[in-house]
Structures are given as C-alpha cells and as structure tokens.
C-alpha cells in the first residue's frame, strides 16, 4: 500500500506573492506565539505530545466511513485537536501536519504553506476552540457536544470560504465559480466532520473525562478566544450565503472599496516609484512590496499579542 492523499491544499502557483507572504506573516506570528505558550504549559513534554498528536491527526485522516455510491466521508481533525488539546497546541499540531503533507506528499505548496496553515490550522483553532470555550464550563453534555459539532462544521466551511477568497484575490479563479463550488462541497464535508468530531468527543468524555474538565480547558485558552471565535464565525456565517448567492455583489463591493485592485496590483500601488532599471519594474518591487506588507502585518500582530499578554497578566 502506497499512501497517496488526494491533493486538497492550495499548491504553489495558485496564490500571488503578496497574498502568500501576508499569510506567511500571519502564520509565523501565530505559530511563534503558540510555541512559547505550549512551551510554558508543557515544558519539555511539548515535543513528544505535539508530535504524537500530529501523527494522530495524520493517521485519523485515514479513517473513513461509507456514505453512498462509493464515496466516503473523511475526517480532518483540526477542530477536535483544538478542543481537546487547546487552541495553541491545536495550531502547532496542524502546522506540523500541513508541513509534512506539503514536504513529503506535495499536497499543498511551500510558498503558499502559510495560507494553508492559516486556513486549516489557525482559523480552525479560533472557531473550534472559541465556540467550544463558550460552553466548556457548562454541565450540560449535550449542549457541549452540539456546540462542538457546529464549531467543527463551521470551521470547515470558513476554511473553504477563506481559500476561495484567497484564490479570487490572487486572480486565479473567478468568484462566481469558485465560491459556490468550494462552499457547496465543504458544506457537505463539514457535516461528516461534525458527526465524527461529536462522536469522538463523546467517546473521550466518557473514557477520559479528566482531559475535558472545565478548569483544564480554561487553562489552555482564556476568554479572549470566545470573542475571536465568535467574531470569525459571525463573519463566516454572514459572508457565506452572500458570497455564494451573489458573488457579483461581493465583487462589486470589493471593487468599490478598491480592495480588488489592492489584491491584483498591490506591488505597484504600495510602491509606485520603486523600479530597478535592468530588472524591469516588477520583480524586485513585488518582493519588496510583499516584504513590506508582511512586516506591517507582523508588527500589528506583535502589538496585539503584547496587549493581550498584558491583559492576561493583570
């Protein structure tokens, strides 16, 4: 048996450089914080635990169940990892999984890996853990499982939504086609994901209730995650029907806001005079504009992270 996953992640060449670099910056910031957070809570145990859990996600993706007509449902696992291990550990685990998928199986590119990790690791952790954290202290098990199911479904759909937007901003796909297609497929995949996540969580609650104690969950991520999860979920919920039902509308809004032009020719508008005579005006200015954009985003993340840290210390 030669393991070959169906390529589902964005490959190299599909996103333009500015989009790739911006999402790399966001991902590097998130992973950096995640490393220091889990290091603090787990110490040297961090490496074996995260490594095995990443292998778990990888192996669990082989679990399938027959649906109908020869197709089968698969498990992605990001939401479950974020709920049980906590958001920071979830981000690290998904980062490791996506890196290996890209490096070893060419499932997803290297330059666009930042975007892939953000879509499937960071966003999933925000929605998965954020929504679950809302009810983690509740004694009602059914409520907790229901919220976990919704979170798993929504994180799948939100990842598809963001991927479609990235492809569109990069000029790879037209919105009218990619948005309904991506959302349509992932609304269905998300149902399978939700069912498996709920069943797995119910099993863990039964067998190892200590892992999901309210106090332990609160330790892994503060109340800030609830806000983050709610905001991201709300955006996804509001944007999805609008984007799939009226993609032209979204395109028009983006055009009116000048957002589309930013995406398509950002390098020229941010640094209009930046030219190197013998290379032409695109190669270096693209890189520099991308780096500037990435640094701005990174700086923003550091400031926000610092503020959050202070808030936590108080």
């Amino acid at each position, binding site marked *: 048996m030669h393991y070959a996953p169906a390529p589902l992640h964005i490959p190299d060449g599909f996103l333009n450089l500015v989009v790739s670099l911006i999402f790399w910056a966001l991902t590097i910031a998130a992973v950096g914080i995640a490393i220091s957070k889990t290091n603090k809570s787990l110490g040297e145990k961090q490496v074996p635990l995260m490594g095995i859990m990443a292998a778990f996600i990888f192996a669990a993706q082989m679990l*399938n169940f027959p649906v109908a007509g020869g197709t089968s449902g698969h498990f992605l696992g990001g939401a479950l990892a974020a709920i049980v291990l906590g958001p920071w550990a979830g981000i690290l685990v998904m980062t490791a999984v996506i890196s290996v998928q890209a490096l070893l199986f060419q499932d997803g590119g290297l330059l666009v890996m930042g975007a892939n990790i953000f879509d499937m690791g960071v966003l999933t952790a925000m929605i998965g853990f954020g929504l679950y954290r809302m009810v983690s202290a509740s004694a009602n098990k059914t409520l907790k499982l229901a919220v976990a199911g919704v979170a798993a479904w929504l994180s799948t759909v939100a990842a598809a939504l963001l991927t479609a937007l990235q492809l569109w901003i990069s000029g790879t796909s037209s919105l009218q086609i990619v948005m309904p297609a991506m959302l349509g497929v992932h609304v269905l995949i998300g149902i399978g994901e939700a069912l498996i996540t*709920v069943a797995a969580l119910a099993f863990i609650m039964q067998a190892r209730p200590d892992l999901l104690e309210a106090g332990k969950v609160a330790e892994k991520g503060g109340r800030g995650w609830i806000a983050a999860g709610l905001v991201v979920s709300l955006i996804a919920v509001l944007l999805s029907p609008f984007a799939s039902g009226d993609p032209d509308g979204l395109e028009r809004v983006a055009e009116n806001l000048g957002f589309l032009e930013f995406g398509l020719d950002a390098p020229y508008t941010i640094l209009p005079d930046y030219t190197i005579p013998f290379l032409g005006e695109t190669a270096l200015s693209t890189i520099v504009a991308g780096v500037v954009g990435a640094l701005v985003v990174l700086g923003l993340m550091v400031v926000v992270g610092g503020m959050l840290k202070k808030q936590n210390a108080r």
Partner: protein
Amino acid sequence: MHADAFDRYYAAESTLHRLDPRIKVVVTVLFILSNALLLDGAWAAFGLGWIFLLLANSASNLGVDFTFRRSFIALPFMLVAVSAIFAPSGQPLAEWRVFGISLVPTDVGVIRFGSILLRTWLSVQAGILLVAVTQFPDLIHAFEHLRVPAVLTTIIAFLYRYLFVLTDEVLRLLRARDSRSAAIPGQKSGRSVFWRAQIAGHMAGQLFLRSYERSDRIYNAMLARGYTGQMRTLRAHVMRRRDWLVLSVSILALLFVQLIGRIG
C-alpha cells in the same frame, strides 16, 4: 503495512544525493519563488525553468523524466484554476453556453490559466525531486539549520517517526471494524449514515486516547534516557566548496530565467 509506505526517498549515488540538504532546500524554495515571480505568458522563461528542472533531474541519477512521471498528483486542483480562463478583462475569444450560463473565454484568461498551470507543474516537480534525493531526517535537520524553530522541526520529526506506528494502529482499527461487519453480498448492511459516522467517530476517539497515552509512555522513556528537550543528530552537515558552487550557479541560473522573463 510496510514501513516505507510514507517514504519518498529514492536511494541512489548522485551529485544531488550528496549535496548538503540546506542547499537543496534553499534552491528548491528559490526555484518556486522564481516561478511565482514570472509574469503571465513568459513562455521562454517557463521553458528555461523546465530545462533547469531537467538538468537537476539528470544530476539525480534517477532518470531525466523522474519528476515528470510523478507530477500528475497536482492535476485535480487544476480544476479550481479553470475558471481563470473566463477572466473579465481581455478580448473575448468565443462564447459557450453551458446549462444556460454563457461562458466567455478571453485571451488574457487563457494565458493566465496556462501560466498558473506551468507554475504549479514546475513547482510540484521541484518538491518531488527534493524529497526523492534527501532523506527526511536530513531535510528536517536542514530546516533547523535554516533557523526554523527547533521545537517545530522536532515536532515534525516526531510526527514522521510515529506516523508509521499510528497508521498501523488505524489499520488495526479498520480491520477490527471489517471483521465485525459481516454482510451478505448484494444486500444492504449496517445502519444509517449517521450510525456509520458515529462508529468512525468512536474509532477516532479511541485512536486519540491511545495516541495520547502513548505519548505519555514515550515521554517517560525519553526522560529515563536523559532527554532534556533537545534532539541530537550524529550526522554533522558541513558546507563544502561544491555546495557553495552549486548554490551560486543555481542562483545565477534563476536570475537568468528572471531576466529572460522580463525581456522576452
């Protein structure tokens, strides 16, 4: 399941195999970056990039068409890019009516689609070649040298090590499910889809707990052997003159590709 099911390394004696893994990683990333920087329709430069790839292939002693034969795994995702053909800017080439929707391919759109296809196809091949000529532990070590946080690279190294173990665990779970699920050929067996999903979910939960507890045991075993949070390797990677030479020649070649892409 055989232990090599996840291994993508092809053992051979070649210049590329002997090259320092850092150089291989850096040149691969530069090659992908170079593809991303080429403008739409810079066909000559894409062709040069392909020649660069073919030369690398032949330097690997695995056959000139080695990566080509394996490059079709990225094809399914190409469907996503097909809609680029209908980019609104540019001259319309034709008008097709499909299910009552009129689709207008434009010249800009077709050029764009072709370029995306080429970029992806070249980049995927570079990645295939990289893992074919570099052992995974060496690859991880190279990333560590390139300042990727050691925690992350070690987690990835762990993932790779226990992938085989946990996959075996999954196969055992699947085999157990199969042997519990007797069915008469031609007759519907099992209950609703929800029930089946629940069974799969319980298997995922079971696998999670087994993995979680295994990580505890592994950690204790590591502690007992003097683990301090650092992983060590016996293979000291030292850059030699040949490595620097390959790096500089590759960078010059990629700069040349870019130059052709701008002029042509």
